[in-house]
């Protein structure tokens, strides 16, 4: 017998995580070097690192103040959506759960449409106000879903998923209703927002996103092993000592929060929360203790690269990043539905 029981299970697989971190760095580098204005690689390095560069140099403006913040934003949004997806999948014990299924993105879209209707969006509005409305809409949806689904202090998961779908449909209908009242340019603005956009955001907004993401990582890391036990079924998890309701509530709230923050800064980007945790699971196994950091790294890298493709494939025009993630996500979703692993839990 092997002196060390279960060597493959026991050993902490650091290597795959290091690989993911490497991919992330590569994605960051590529994002900073590629764009519609061509900047030579040496210029890029100079613009990034050399201090005392001329602030009026277009290369500096493009590399340091447009591409780099955009890549960081893409990274954080991707990480947040992937982590939220992991959380929802874990508490619903369903590898096909996605933050969009819980109606949160529709709520955020609703918030943005209201802000546009009130004239708060557009060139003369404050973008922070629009973000705030979006966040409020997202939270409204999450609270509604929770309130509808919870029964006597428990959170039955099938009801949660169903109520998420219903709330999502409701808010989407509201969005359709309001768009009929908008002027042409405002309508373009709403559509632009609904398809996902990585437009420059203020430093404060970026900081809030970072803090929310950190909270999400903390909560999910803390409950990671308990989420593993939830996979056995709620009754079993309870019998093993897991406070299932508390865990579900904490993870739901954290995931809804980071989804809300991500969507209110970057619009409704589909499929990231579905594909990334699943890919991570395929690579590293279903242990959530490994999946939490893996989803963060892979999600960040994925969205950065998707944005890169969205910016480059039809240059100088920019595709909405949601288009690229959907093109990757939809076929994968179909594959998962039809393969054994995806169908198991349904």
């Amino acid at each position, binding site marked *: 017998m092997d002196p060390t029981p279960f060597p493959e299970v026991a050993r902490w697989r650091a290597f795959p995580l290091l690989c993911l971190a490497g991919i992330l760095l590569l994605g960051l580098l590529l994002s900073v070097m590629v764009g519609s204005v061509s900047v030579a690689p040496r210029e890029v390095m100079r613009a990034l690192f050399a201090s005392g560069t001329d602030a009026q140099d*277009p290369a500096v403006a*493009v590399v340091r103040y447009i591409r780099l913040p955009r890549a960081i934003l893409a990274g954080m949004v991707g990480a947040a959506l992937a982590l939220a997806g992991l959380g929802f999948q874990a508490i619903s014990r369903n590898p096909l759960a996605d933050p969009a299924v819980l109606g949160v993105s529709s709520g955020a879209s609703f918030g943005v449409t209201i802000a546009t209707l009130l004239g708060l969006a557009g060139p003369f509005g404050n973008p922070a106000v629009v973000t705030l409305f979006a966040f409020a809409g997202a939270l409204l949806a999450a609270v509604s879903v929770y309130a509808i689904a919870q029964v006597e202090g428990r959170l039955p998961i099938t009801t949660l998923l169903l109520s998420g779908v219903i709330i999502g449909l409701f808010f989407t209908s509201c969005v359709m209703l309001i768009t009929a009242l908008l*002027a042409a340019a405002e309508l373009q603005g709403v559509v632009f927002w609904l398809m996902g956009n990585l*437009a420059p955001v203020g*430093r404060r907004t970026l900081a809030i996103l970072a803090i929310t993401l950190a909270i999400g990582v903390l909560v999910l890391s803390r409950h990671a092993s308990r989420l593993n036990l939830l996979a056995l079924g709620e009754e079993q998890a309870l019998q093993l000592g897991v406070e299932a309701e508390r865990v579900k509530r904490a993870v739901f709230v954290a995931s809804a929060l980071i989804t809300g923050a991500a969507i209110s800064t970057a619009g409704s980007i589909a499929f990231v929360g579905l594909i990334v945790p699943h890919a991570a699971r395929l690579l590293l196994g279903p242990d959530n203790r490994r999946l939490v950091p893996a989803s963060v790294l892979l999600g960040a890298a994925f969205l950065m690269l998707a944005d890169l493709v969205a910016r480059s494939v039809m240059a100088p025009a920019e595709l909405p990043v949601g288009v690229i993630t959907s093109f990757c996500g939809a076929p994968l979703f179909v594959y998962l539905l039809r393969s054994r692993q995806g169908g198991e839990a349904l």
Partner: protein
Amino acid sequence: MRDAAGRRWIMGRAVLGLLLWLCLTAVPVRATTTTDMLGRTLTVPDGPMRVVSLAPSLTEIVFALGRGDWLVGVTDFCDYPPEARSKPKVGGSMTPDLERVVGLRPDLVLATAEGNPRDTVALLTRLRIPVFAVKPDGYAGILASLQAVGRALRAEAAAARLVRDIQGRVGAIRHAVAGERHPRVLYLVWTDPLIAAGPTTYIHDLIEMAGGENVVRERSVPYPRLGWEEVVGEAPEVILVASHRNGLERPPIREVWRSWQSVPAVRSGRIIAVPGDTIHRPGPRVVEGVERLARAIHPEVFGRMEAR
């Protein structure tokens, strides 16, 4: 005795008969045939007409030609001149309510090829309601549409006067900026996403007449979408942002933009709000639009202008 009385009797009968014949065969209303800017012929009645306008620019033109009281229906967005607001509404420019238009029993409907749905025009024509369409292609097109509507409303003289007046004032502006260097101008219709005015729009003509060089003049799309990186690449010296509501609350500079110091417009703070109404409507106020643009682009020529 019989001859005189009999002759008078016959005369009376003849006169009566002639009058009767005239009444029976006379056409109720006299009409004229005219051609609109799309080459379609239509018949418009003489005398005062009931006119429905399907675009704010057309409403303004009608009032400018002195035919405001002929208007029986305008769109929801027709807000100038103030009298237009009290007219009955027929819906939006892109979504006019057909029932309401027909219910107003118009003798003539004014439509524009830029904005009104083709189906509406087709339906109205099928219902035997004359539709006069304009096509304001560029600045010259705006002037042509003024004259065309003048033709349709039998106000040719007023139209000619209006066109002369506009050309004069615009000419004065062009003359004033003739010797100046034309700065690179970026005109933004919207900021999320960035939508600029391309070379096929009349906005482009207005910018050029006001002494500016439109940075997106090489694009083929009427309203191209830009990325911020491209803006840095194009390096405009003046950025004009269109306001769609009355009253310009805050200057349209975002904090994030301030770090892009390589863009001349950001560096010098020349990011200016301009009222969208006068610039986007191909109507009689186009000259005000040109004036506003000129003052924003060449403040030193036209006096101080609110910058920050």
